[in-house]
């Protein structure tokens, strides 16, 4: 029982980090209808930028703030250089451009920062975990959870109550129709990418605090996909719930299935679960069900 509760708690906390990255992911989908396969690399860039500034002596919060500004600039640049010309193109083309971008960004990160693991020194969060009864919770996880919830509120409010948010949703729903009623697709793309860069930067900075930072942290961006799919690609609360479900599931599999299937069951469980889940609920829990007619 104790093991079970502990596993669940860890799962929820890890799920908080997934939810954080998943938020950036859903956001770009909700704003521009694009499946951004470069999300892991955006996470890396944000994390490395804040790491570099932190190592140069800037306080952590300020370093993250700088990474946010740089993310904003990079987002606008990405839009101007790569995505501007793709407005009105089929969505698949844009998805494949994000694949190309992911290669490019990863190469840039590797060229600039190398492939060695780097850690935030001195550690930002104290190693001393918080104890509630017999439950032990790492501070990093707790903070990530709080930030994820905070961002959730901000984003839901943004989409529901601001003109920009509504314009972004309209573009995602039908780009051509949105263009014809005067929504600036360039602005929407730029905003979406900037926000995704910034969300990924925060997520990456927190992730980097857990086990240090190397290129494989970028693959966490992929591990987040099952979470997003589970919640439904275009639901912001769905990303949080999906992230937590996937985190819990992953830890449960690690705790209980590892003895039967030794090896990487933990890494693969989300994907296997997602493949089966899609068979029964193809649009996730809260995704838009598109009804198609000929």
């Amino acid at each position, binding site marked *: 029982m104790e093991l079970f509760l502990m596993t669940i708690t860890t799962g929820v906390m890890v799920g908080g980090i997934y939810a954080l990255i998943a938020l950036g992911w859903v956001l770009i989908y909700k704003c521009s209808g694009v499946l951004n396969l470069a999300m892991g690399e955006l996470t890396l860039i944000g994390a490395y930028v804040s790491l570099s500034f932190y190592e140069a002596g800037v306080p952590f919060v300020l370093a993250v703030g700088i990474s946010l500004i740089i993310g904003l600039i990079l987002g606008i640049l990405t839009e101007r250089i790569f995505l501007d010309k793709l407005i009105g193109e089929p969505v698949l083309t844009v998805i494949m451009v994000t694949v*190309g971008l992911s290669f490019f960004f990863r*190469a840039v990160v590797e060229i600039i920062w190398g492939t060695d693991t780097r850690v935030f020194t001195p550690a930002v969060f104290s190693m001393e975990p918080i104890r509630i009864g017999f439950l032990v919770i790492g501070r990093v996880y707790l903070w990530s959870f709080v930030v994820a919830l905070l961002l959730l509120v901000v984003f839901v409010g943004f989409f529901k109550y601001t003109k920009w948010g509504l314009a972004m949703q309209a573009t995602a729903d039908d780009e051509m129709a949105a263009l014809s009623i005067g929504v600036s697709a360039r602005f929407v793309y730029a905003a979406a990418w900037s926000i995704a860069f910034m969300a990924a930067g925060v997520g990456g900075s927190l992730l980097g605090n857990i086990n240090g930072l190397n290129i494989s942290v970028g693959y966490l961006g992929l591990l987040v996909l099952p979470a997003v799919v589970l919640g439904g*690609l275009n639901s912001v609360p769905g990303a949080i719930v999906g992230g937590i479900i996937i985190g819990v599931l992953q830890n449960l599999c690690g705790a209980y299935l590892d003895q039967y299937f030794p090896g990487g069951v933990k890494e693969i469980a989300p994907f296997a679960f997602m493949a089966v889940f899609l068979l029964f609920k193809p649009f996730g829990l809260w995704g838009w069900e598109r009804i198609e007619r000929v």
Partner: protein
Amino acid sequence: MSTTFLPCGTYHENYSQDHAWWQTGFVKGKMILLFLFLFVVFPFLEPYIAEVEFIGGVFSFAVFIVIGYYVLGALGVQLLIGYCGQVTLGHAAFIAVGAYTSTLLILQFPWPQFMLDWGLAYPVSIFVAAVTAGMWSVLFGLPSAKVKGFYLILTTMAAQFITVDFILTQYVSQIGGRGQAFSLPPGTIKIGPWLMDSGIKIYYFMLVLVILCCAGLLNLLRSKVGRAWVAIRDNDIAAETMGINIVKYKLFAFFVAGFIGGVAGAFWVSNLAAISPEHFPWFLSLWLVGIILIGGAGSVHGAIYGAIFMGILIEILNQFIMITADVFPALLMRSMFVKDGLFGLAICGFLIYEPNGLAYRWWQAKNYFNLWPFSY
């Protein structure tokens, strides 16, 4: 089947002309010259070209074998993405299944002695590997009955991670207590009387496989099946209302794509003589998709052009880095990353400025000459 305009003054008079692969005498002559070059002239010249610095490395058997492997791998992706509209980002998994099936059959299966003597073990294992990979592909194609677009991308990604990172790495590659890497002892890869031990033999083997797979796929595409695939790609709901059993045809597309992927994997074994899960990363899946996007989605020769472009480009880059290593040693250290970055930029550039790929340019050039002097 003709997507090319015929030259002025050339007409078809019966169906067999209309259905011919090579429609005019000029095309026939051109293709014969191409085959002559590939089968006779190039193998004869290769030792001399390989001596030349810089260019020699680019045009050697080794590079052509890699290009052949890319072609075989990309054909399946081309079928799924270009012809059937089922976006897949996990094709390396099926190639890996093919490679592992073939290797395990050669190493572990109790072949009768006469088959070993006649060199039948490897050819038979290629076929079995292809069928196994096809079945495996169908298994992961099953969600395509219900989901499409983004969600299918994610399920095929799941195929990649489940197959390569879990099943192959954790279980299959432990068979026989070899640890991670399987190696095939010399003398085990044998087709008939030929031992696959030199570049030229693998090169010929590659040519035969590529031609067989291309011919098989092209013939499928111009049959009822191919039309059903194209209908599904263009609008699957409309296709269903026309009476096409879309689940059946989608799964068949996955089977054929997996089959060709299996052939690619089994072929790659002959070149490497050793395999490990690291040879089939997710990167390879993306790479294959990149190849068909650069070559042009929706045409078999697009896969070939893309493979040639990427193969040659990477090799030129390699040679360039080698030559400039004295001046820029940092470039040599990070050559892998530079290549990745350029590959990413190439994909972006092609999608933005040349969305129809190289095959479209080739089509335009061909038609310009076909219609000349009335090329408007």
